[in-house]
Structure formats: C-alpha cells, structure tokens
C-alpha cells in the first residue's frame, strides 16, 4: 500500500514556485531521504504532506487528504521539524503529560524508558536543556507514539556528531519496523546513506532523481582511475569528474562495472558525490538551454 501518493503536487508563494507539479509515491515500510539545496522545496513538500500548508494537485497520505483531513491524519503521523520547536517554557514532565493527554497512541512507559537512558531531569524546562538533550526528548516523545508515518525535517540540525549518530541509531534499532514509513530531509547526507531505502533529489521544485538505494548502488559507480587509464575512462562518458590526491575520480551512471574494473578502483559513490554530479549537470543543461 502506498503511504504517500502525490500527483501534480504544486505550491507557489506569490511568484515563487516551491513545488512544480511533482509526482511521487512512497510505499509503506520505506525510509525515504529527500535531498536538495536550500530553497529546493523540501520543507514545502513535507508541510504539504503534514497538512500544514495548502497545495494544488492531488495528495494522499495514509489514505487521507492532508489539508482537509489534518485532524484525522495527525493521529497516525509524527513530526520532528528541528530541535528548536519545543516551547521553551515547557517542563519535561509537562511534555509527557500533555502528549499522553492528547495522543491516543502515546505509550508513556516507553517514553519514560527512553528518558531513563538519558541524563534529562523530569523537572527541567526545555530552555535549560542542551540541544542534544532536546533532540533526545523529542525523539523519546515521538518514538513512544505508535505512528505509521514519521516525518523528519532536518532533525539533527545543530547537533554534534555523537548525538547525530545516536539519533539515527536509536531510530533504526528501536523504532523502525517494516510497517512504519519514515521521510527525512537533511543536509548531512553521509550519515543517512546506510539508513535510507529510497532516495529523492529535488531542485527548484522538481524531482531530479528518484530511486531506491538498490537501484542507486547498481546504477552509480565511482572509479578511482589509474593515471594511464584516464583517457580510456573518459571515453566511457562519466557524468562527473573530480581530482583527489592528483588522481581522477570519475562517476558513471549506468556503466558496466566489469569494464570499469580494469580502469582502477571501483566503488559505490556517496550520495553527496552523486548529488553534486546530478545538480551540476542540471545547472549545465539549463545554462546550455539559456544560451
């Protein structure tokens, strides 16, 4: 069953087009990463999915229309925007009371169990917690909710590397199962490469790339080419080339791995490298069209 289904999803703010009629589909039990530059439309897409903003086109989330059926939808959806959105005056115990009081699927014992593993004091106010503790608190609240869709918008913004790692580890080990779906946007792409099952690049309101991680791994190949093979490698039509320690690193899209193996060291590229390559070729295409 599709968890999210969008057809011709469109949203503009005044003259600026944030989402330019995109189509996509997220199956249940997937972990989708939406990657894009600032202002690409990631947050707008998430806000539309969460029913926080109006949109044009067709959008179904867990069978509901997010804008008109938001009240019904939020029972099955959890959302972490970034660590800064918990109200500063709220006490930890009040947060537990409140969420427990309004959410039918909140398991307080589970939230307490998560908190017991941290150094967070029940009586503390949000403003007295460090950013890392805030993320832990938010995560504890969200993971105790038996939701079907979890939406994360830059959830680890401003956290140090230890907390970021812990955040995704906890999410994967303790929360994710095949019946839940997670949609995440982040700029820290490297950290979620092994977490994702699906990937979407989005730029200026359009989807530039959409594939599963299996497809990604079979499609994109990076070769650290031996200097004497550089000419041969270039002849195979790499989509991107960069230099590292005076060696050429060429990125191929859909090339034959066996043919490439003779040219140098073959490996799966990072999402970040493919992102740079794909966005670069996008910019090149548009520059060409403008000329």
């Amino acid at each position, binding site marked *: 069953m599709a968890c999210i289904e969008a057809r011709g999803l469109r949203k503009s703010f005044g003259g600026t087009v944030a989402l330019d009629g995109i189509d996509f589909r997220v199956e249940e039990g997937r972990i989708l990463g939406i990657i894009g530059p600032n202002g690409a439309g990631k947050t707008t897409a998430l806000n539309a999915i969460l029913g926080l903003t109006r949109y044009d086109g067709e959008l179904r989330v867990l069978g509901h229309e997010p804008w008109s059926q938001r009240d019904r939808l939020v*029972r099955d*959806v959890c*959302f972490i925007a970034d660590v800064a*959105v918990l109200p500063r*005056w709220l006490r930890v115990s009040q947060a537990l009371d409140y*969420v427990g009081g309004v*959410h*039918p699927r909140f398991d307080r014992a589970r939230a307490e169990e998560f908190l017991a593993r941290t150094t967070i004091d029940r009586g503390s106010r949000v403003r007295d917690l460090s950013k890392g503790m805030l993320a832990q608190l938010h995560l504890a609240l969200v993971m105790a909710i038996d939701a079907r869709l979890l939406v994360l918008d830059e959830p680890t913004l401003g956290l140090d590397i230890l907390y970021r790692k812990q955040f995704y580890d906890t999410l994967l080990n303790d929360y994710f199962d095949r019946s839940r779906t997670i949609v995440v946007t982040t700029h820290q792409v490297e950290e979620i490469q092994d977490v994702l099952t699906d990937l979407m690049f989005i730029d200026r309101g359009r989807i530039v790339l959409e594939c599963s991680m299996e497809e990604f791994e079979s499609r994109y190949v990076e070769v650290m080419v031996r200097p004497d093979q550089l000419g041969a490698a270039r002849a195979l039509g790499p989509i991107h080339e960069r230099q590292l320690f005076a060696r050429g690193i060429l990125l191929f899209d859909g090339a034959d791995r066996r043919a490439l193996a003779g040219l140098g060291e073959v490996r799966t590229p990072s999402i970040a490298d493919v992102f740079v390559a794909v966005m670069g070729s996008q910019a090149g295409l548009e520059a060409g069209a403008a000329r």
Partner: protein
Amino acid sequence: MNAPANAVLQPAVDARPAAPAEPRPIRPFYWSLRRELWENRSIYLAPLGVAAFAVLALVIHAITMPSHMPGMLANDPADPQSASVTYRVAALLMLVTAFVVAAFYCLEGLSSERRDRSILFWRSLPVSDLTTVLAKACVPLVVLPVVTFAAIVAMHLALLLLSTVALLLNGHAAGPLWRELQPFRMWLAMLYSLIALTLWHAPIHGFLLLVSGWARRTAALWAVLPLLALGLLEKLTMDTTHVGAWVRDRLIGWYPRAFGAPALGERVPFNPATGLTPERFLASPGLWIGLVLAAVFVAGAVRMRRLREPI
C-alpha cells in the same frame, strides 16, 4: 555503548505488538487548557499578587497608624459607606488587573507559538485548531473570572479577619463592621459583576485573539492603532467623538446597565446597597451584539490558526 542500550530495549520492542491496540481515551480540551495555565502563570499569579498586596497594605496601615483603624474599618457616622470602600477599591483593583492580564494574554495567545515556532510541535499532535483556540478563548471568558472571584473572596476574608482582630485588640466591637459590609451580599454583587463584565468584554477578548492570530508582529499596535486612527479621523473631519464614546461604552458600559443608571456618578463602584438590574443588562442590545461579534472573532481566530505559518 550501543550494544547494552539495545539489549535493554529488546524486551520493549518484542512487547509492543502485544500492547492493546485499542487507543487510549484522550482529553484534548482539558490538556489544551492545562497547557495555557502552564505557559501563562500570570493568570493566577497576578490576582493572587493583588490580594497579597491589599492584605499587606492593610497590615502596614494597622501597624503604622493604629489610631486610624476604627475610622477606616468601622462605621463612620459621617460616611455610612466608609467601611466598605477599602473592600470595594481592592476588588476594583482586582478587576482591572484581571482585564489587563486577559488583554495581554489574548494578544500573545496566537502569536507567541508562531514566534518561537513551537506551533510546529503543537500541530504535530492530534489537537484541532478549534480545540486549541476554544481553550485559549476559555481563559479570559471562564478561567480568569473564576480565579478573580476566588481571589476577591479570599482577599476580602483575609481583610475581614485582620480588621476584626485589629478592632478587638483596640477594644472596639467588630459587629458594626460586619453589619455594614454585608460580606455575602458584597460577594454576590461581585460574582454578578464578574459575569456581566466578562460577557460585556467578550468581543474585546475575541478581537485581541483574532489580531494575535493575524498580525505578524506588534499585535498590540494592530489592535489599538486602527481605533485611534478612526477616532482621530472622525474628530478631524466631523468634529464628533462617536468612536471614543463607543470604545468607552465597550469598556465600562456594562456597569450602568448591570447596576442601574444612577450608580454611574459614583466614584467607587460595587456599593452593596446598589440594586442589581440583571433584566436591564440582559435587555441591552449592546450585550447581544457584542456576543455575536465575539463568536465571529473567535471563529476568525480558528481560521487564522489554521492558515498562519510560523513567523
């Protein structure tokens, strides 16, 4: 570090499917109201502060000027109302405080959560905009009047107790004071006043709530400036003051309607001897027009909460 953490959690993960699938009962309105009281402690701290201040003032007065006590507390032949004036002034102070607290509360009501972006957290939970805004409207319309009434009664009781002790210690009888004050009658008049005042002010609170949901910043200016501009324009173009009179009537017009016109000339209101005129108050069109406007404003505020995004 990871391994032990996972080991600890393993039972919980296994236990989850066995947990009851039936959703727990929820009380969104109750918890929304609790949230408002957590966030805005001035709702109960301000009236309590005024009560404490009044009691303290009386104690200081009794200590520093004991000779004045009988004149102020007991029946002064020159002014039969003198005893109750202290109590009525203290109560008036409380009502003004409650109004100020309500006004500031409403002006922040729908803007503070957008300013600190916490609206993203609140909206991630299954509480509708209607429930949230109704809970917020309930604060000036129900919670504050109840708190104010309780604080007034508590304050009056403390004052009465202190006065009685002071009178007895100074060798005066306390009976005349109680007879003069008629505390239960006074409290009944206070309760009636609070209900009338709250109903009369409902459109003000609704309007401030709507403005706080609409304005991106400086909600207070947006609430006041248009009225000022309108009044100024009227004065300049037609040399009349209808706008000013209308605002004045909306602020204090409940009093002559609820207590009968003659009371308007009185310097200190809530005279226990003044008659209550609920039929007159209920029959005034201003009350019902105001209530309809209040409903419209609150409905507009619900819409604003739905449409507006974090600032």
